[in-house]
């Protein structure tokens, strides 16, 4: 049986609700899972109008007893009235509701009622305005799930995954944050997340920091002093890992299929490659978590929200990946 995946509509003022409405109308969730929407019925109804689609749904109180063959089920949280939200605008009420809905999704994961969670785009500033004071959603998940093991953002495009050693910090602080331990953590997270998704022995490439992988120390020493020792340690722990490789060639080989995952040293190293090669298809997974959690890599796109023109591919793929991870777990 396909896994039960909770799907939230994300920030009401953004493109999330219209994307979910389109996916339901085009029957693009059920090929992967037994979906249950989590959110406010009024938002879904408004989104149908925005997306110019029409489908029937069924409001349910709980997951138990859902007839999976019938109309798409939605758990109505009655927590945000779209009429009170200006599309494309940051709003504390709507940010609060977005966060509250996620918390509900996390509870359902913990209680085993759903086996994975996909959330439509949220706005970090909106979450904060609404009282969910976390620097990003991954930290929010860890907090509510009381998860104290390593976790982090992992990006997926088709068959290629990337994880990062550093993320939202200045470039000027990247080098000093590269330690053997930090790199090992990112490599281990990538390895564990891919194994969790069904890869037997993930093929891991580790990127360099400096141009031409430091050119034997001419262009920086981090490769020699830190990255190579970390790769050796990871390999000695049994991981299928190689590197450090020049950042400008590692992605060519990775997209050709030589590796399953590239561990990058800083945010843009991976994101430049992933967004160039598939801007509308990227998915973000919260790696290291005990439950599958995936979201489209793009944001709320306030500039086009409410016009019904948003692309739905990435959200579909997020549902697909969460389903794949959940299905592997129940084997």
């Amino acid at each position, binding site marked *: 049986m396909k896994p039960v995946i909770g799907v939230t509509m994300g920030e009401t003022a953004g493109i999330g609700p219209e994307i979910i409405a389109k996916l339901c109308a085009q029957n693009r969730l059920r090929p992967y899972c037994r979906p249950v929407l989590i959110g406010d019925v009024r938002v879904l109804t408004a989104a149908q109008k925005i997306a110019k689609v029409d489908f029937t749904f069924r409001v349910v109180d709980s997951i138990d007893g859902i007839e999976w063959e019938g109309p798409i089920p939605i758990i109505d949280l009655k927590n945000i009235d779209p009429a009170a939200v200006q599309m494309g605008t940051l709003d504390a009420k709507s940010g609060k509701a977005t966060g509250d809905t996620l918390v509900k999704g996390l509870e359902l994961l913990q209680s085993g009622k759903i086996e994975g969670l996909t959330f439509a785009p949220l706005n970090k500033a909106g979450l904060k305005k609404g009282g969910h004071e976390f620097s990003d959603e991954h930290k929010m998940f860890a907090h509510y799930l009381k998860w104290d093991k390593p976790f982090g953002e992992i990006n997926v495009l088709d068959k290629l995954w990337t994880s990062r050693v550093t*993320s*939202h*910090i*200045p*470039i*000027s*602080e*990247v*080098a000093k944050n590269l330690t053997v331990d930090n790199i090992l953590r990112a490599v281990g997270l990538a390895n564990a997340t891919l194994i969790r998704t069904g890869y037997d022995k993930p093929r891991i490439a580790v990127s360099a*920091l*400096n*141009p*031409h992988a*430091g*050119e034997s120390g001419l*262009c*920086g*020493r*981090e490769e020699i002093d830190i990255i190579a020792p970390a790769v050796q340690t990871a390999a000695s722990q049994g991981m299928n890992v190689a590197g450090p490789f*020049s*950042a*400008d*060639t590692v*992605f*060519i080989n990775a*997209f050709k299929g030589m590796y399953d995952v590239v561990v990058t040293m*800083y*945010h*843009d*190293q991976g*994101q*430049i*490659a*992933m*967004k*160039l*090669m598939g*801007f509308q298809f990227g998915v973000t997974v919260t790696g290291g978590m005990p439950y599958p959690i995936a979201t489209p890599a793009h944001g709320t796109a306030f500039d086009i929200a409410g016009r019904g023109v948003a692309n739905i591919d990435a959200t579909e793929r997020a549902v697909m990946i969460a389903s794949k991870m959940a299905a592997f777990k129940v084997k």
Partner: protein
Amino acid sequence: MKNNSGRRPLIGITMGDGAGVGPEIIVKALTDKETYDYCRPLIIGDKGIMERAVSVVKAPVTVSGISDISEARFIFGTLDVLDLANLPADLPFSRVDGRAGKAAYEFIERAVKMALDGEIDAIATAPLNKEALSQGGCKYPGHTEILAALSGTKDYAMMLVSGPLKVIHVCTHVSMRKACDLITKERVLRIIKLAGETLRKMGITSPRIAVAGFNAHSGEGGLFGTEEINEIIPAIEESLKLGLAVTGPVPPDTVFYRAVIKKEFDIVVVMYHDQGHIPIKLLGFETGVNVTVGLPFIRTSVDHGTAFDIAGKGIADSRSMSEAIRLAATMADAGPDKGK
């Protein structure tokens, strides 16, 4: 892409390292008749080595060694080689050889002199080997440094062209630690101006220039770094006052998508080596061309090395060389000397 003026610019093509793929890819590029429609190619090299390359490639062309440019005929089927006669015909393939390095330097030296004297309109260079160059007694590490030194140029930059994407670097071969110190308002502004000037030479009358941020999300208002606020944004404001069409700082992870897929920009000013090289290489390794901007003459080059692993086999891909010659011709044709 034929030229507009009907005049065929004269392109000096330096042979590069004779033990590498340079001579072969030049032969292949000049075996395409169309090359002669838009330019007059002159190889600056060694006749014996070029003859060897013709036989390696099995090209239906002959080599005409000349000692003065006035002897060149520029007719398809005959390769005009300004013969510096500085290499043995049996120079081994695929080996670092000081003789090849020294010869490669001499080709460039001659090309620079001819360009400065106005005898050729542009230079397109085949790859050289840095180690051979050094063994040959050259004190400069590579092409760019030689060209800058011989022409007395202090302020230059590297532009990369690959299919639909053009990027120009604020800094290149330095560590990421050092790159942080090189992001200054003056340097960024200088590169923006060079980008505008170079694209106009390439025939784009009103270039749309994107400036990438340095940090993730362009620093997100100072949260993840201040180079945008302190250096990049002031440089952009200054460039706007000059009437340039400049956008930025654009977050580095979306700027290439917007330039390539959305076609919003003609060029992206990138802050460091990999920021520009990751997208360029992903988009097409075989057709990339480098342009050195800021020199007193036009210079393009292939974006690959001597490929010693396949030299002498006749299998090297010549598309980058062809594109380098074509781009040099386009820039010479659209440049200030147009119609001369």
